């Protein structure tokens, strides 16, 4: 049977939208000046940048913030955390154990240099987590960094509640890694009282190599890249103007379609979970009370996750085992371990992740191939 490929790995990356690509091409052809040049042609590029920033800030309801364009969310996370870490490298940071490596590893690095870390237990109920957070905040705490949606499990963390607590302490800043939530769930920087937010273009049908850090105005960061002082001195380097324009476009498109897609995604999620349960030996891991419908994580007893990824890809069905960024290491997923799953499940689980264009037919095709392969491999 001839059919197109089934791509269910949208949390790893997405295909660039044609309209977004069109913006990228046109911005490169028509507004290729250097945004820092003083002449009019440079000023046009600067206008593209200003307008892109403004559009994105509006979409994120970031009414008291400025936009820093970066090479991706990894750089944004690095800038947010290292940039806030005081020079003398003492102080205390609160984060979780399920962060993306670009937060987690940065925290480990800072810990080696003398900073102290506390990790929120995300297994608890929201009320318990908030209580724990309040107990954790110390006089030398300067940052709470917390992802919005976990990329492996789709677990949604209560950033609005956390933001409320953090806002009570003016010296403590609140950073949110929103890579997996922008365009999928409502992200409102004002009402969640977020000081810094990281996002990435290629997760929302934008181009790769483009990210942003949204920073509350007046907040002082130590730049991690020094040079010509672009982006208000916070991120030097000739600004990727066309990238910024295409990011703004991608964000607008995905957020405009967000509410409707969310409803549809919930139906797809429920359907997928139900169908997976019917397969013998399958256990669905991602069913939290706060769950993003864009991500389903499951465990197939007796077959190694990696084996299944390869088997499915023979049929042009693409899913992933652990997150792509860390899937080259053989270790068990630290995310699943932190969420209380045993070593076996944490090593052998699979993830399917959706995007707005995902169809029921694709999911059916995936399920069919999965059933077939599970039967064959057992």
């Amino acid at each position, binding site marked *: 049977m001839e059919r197109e490929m089934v791509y269910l790995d949208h949390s790893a990356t997405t295909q660039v939208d044609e309209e977004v690509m069109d*913006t990228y091409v*046109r*911005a490169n052809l*028509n*507004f290729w000046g250097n945004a820092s040049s*003083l002449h*009019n042609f440079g000023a*046009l590029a600067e*206008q*593209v940048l200003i*307008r*892109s920033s*403004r*559009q994105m800030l*509006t979409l994120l309801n970031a*009414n*008291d913030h400025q936009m820093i364009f970066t090479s991706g969310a990894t750089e944004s996370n690095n800038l947010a955390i290292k940039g806030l870490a005081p020079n003398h490298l003492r102080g205390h940071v609160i984060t979780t154990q399920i962060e993306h490596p670009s937060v987690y590893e940065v925290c480990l690095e800072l810990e080696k240099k003398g900073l102290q870390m506390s990790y929120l237990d995300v297994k608890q109920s929201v009320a318990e987590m908030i209580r724990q957070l309040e107990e954790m905040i110390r006089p030398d705490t300067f940052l709470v960094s917390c992802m919005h949606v976990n990329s492996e499990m789709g677990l949604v963390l209560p950033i609005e509640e956390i933001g409320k607590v953090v806002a009570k302490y003016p010296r403590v800043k609140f950073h949110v890694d929103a890579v997996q939530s922008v365009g999928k769930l409502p992200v409102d920087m*004002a*009402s969640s009282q977020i000081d810094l937010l990281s996002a990435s273009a290629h997760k929302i049908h934008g181009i790769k190599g483009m990210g942003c850090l949204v920073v509350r105005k007046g907040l002082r960061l130590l730049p991690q890249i020094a040079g010509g002082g672009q982006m208000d001195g916070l991120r030097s380097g000739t600004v990727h103007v066309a990238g910024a*324009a295409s990011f*703004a*476009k991608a964000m*607008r498109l995905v957020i405009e379609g967000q509410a409707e897609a969310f409803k549809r995604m919930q139906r797809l999620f429920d359907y997928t979970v139900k169908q997976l349960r019917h397969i013998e030996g399958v256990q669905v891991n991602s069913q939290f009370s706060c769950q993003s419908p864009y991500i389903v994580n499951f465990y197939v007893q007796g077959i190694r996750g990696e084996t299944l990824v390869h088997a499915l890809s023979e049929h042009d069905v693409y899913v992933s085992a652990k997150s792509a960024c860390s899937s080259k290491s053989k270790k068990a997923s630290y995310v699943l371990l932190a969420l209380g799953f045993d070593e076996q499940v944490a090593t052998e689980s699979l993830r399917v992740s959706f995007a707005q264009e995902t169809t029921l037919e694709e999911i059916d095709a995936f399920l069919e191939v999965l059933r077939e392969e599970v039967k064959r491999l057992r």
Partner: protein
Amino acid sequence: MVYDRILVRYGELSIKGKNRKIFKNALHRAIRFKLKPFAALTFEITRDRFYIILNGVDANVVSEKLNEVFGLQSYSLAAKTENDIDAIKKLALEVITEQYPGPTTFKVETKRADKSFFMQSGDISRSVGGHLLANTHNLIVNVHQPDMILNIEVRREGSFVMAGRVKGLGGFPVGSSGKGLLMISGGIDSPVAGYLLQKRGVEIEAIHFASPPYTSERSLQKVVDLLKKVAVYAATGEIKLHIVPFTKLQEAIHQHMPDHYEMTIMRRMMYRIAEGVAKNHDIMVLANGESLGQVASQTLASMNAINAVTAMPIIRPVATYDKLEIIDVAQKIDTYETSILPFEDCCTIFVPKSPATHPTQALCEQYEAMVDFTDLIADCIKQVETRIISIVEMEETLAEIDALL
């Protein structure tokens, strides 16, 4: 966003008896011109209010444009509902929860223009205030120094809820006070002078003295770039620029006049030419960016000797400003970075080593009598090249950019 309209309050206009109508119309024109790119907007005009109905257009983008209009005292984002106390309460709660960072103290002020409404102003305020207190956290009433005043207006056409008020630029709508000719060199001061003139309602045209090949094309381009920034505040987004071919006259001055009087006499020539150009274009006043005491040409003695050549009034908006005060305005109107670009202009070429700081009118006249400048001056006035500097072209490009996004 809960807001569906912007309420615009008129500036000093409110106190201008008979001229009020002229000013009001000029302001309406200016606002409509500024908002032309947003086709979806509609406008409602009442006696002392001007409403911009957003129809889905982003309020932030619109308010950014309003911040470029003179004659506008203040404006508020507003939401409309029916004349029903429960609807008003509900809307007030929505408005106050949308504020960020949320106010901690507030006060409700009500105006009941529609006297047929069953509650009195005070009762409405208390009732809405009570509703807000019951449905929010950390919010208390403070009638003396509130963080935020929530305004409610009950009018025949509906009830409006507004939070806070944004200050506009003030002043008078550009064009409501007639026309002035601004002498612009490319420095920091003259664009600021142009901005301040427009603030008081003066429509400006500009005059620039070019001395190629001593001054370059880039120096002229700099003036054009500066005027584009100043034209943002012009009623139609356009400023006429009169370019004077000054080379021959300036060479003659350099050749025949004594060094220490060269600069004074050059400026006297400029005023003569500016006056001639102004008369040709029905302009009644000259203006420039002179500031007292900064350089030799700006001592009071110098000003006196130079000014003597014309009877036309000369407005010097920044005469009493400190340099830093001028720079502040220049940065605000985004001309500073362009102004400090290092190109020669006609005031920086042939600069004598020690110009006279206390020139006299008598000596000027004595020196000038040695050469017949009449034809050279007349040629300058006759050969003026006039260009229209417009932001419209820029607006079109901006529309193109917006279409990209």
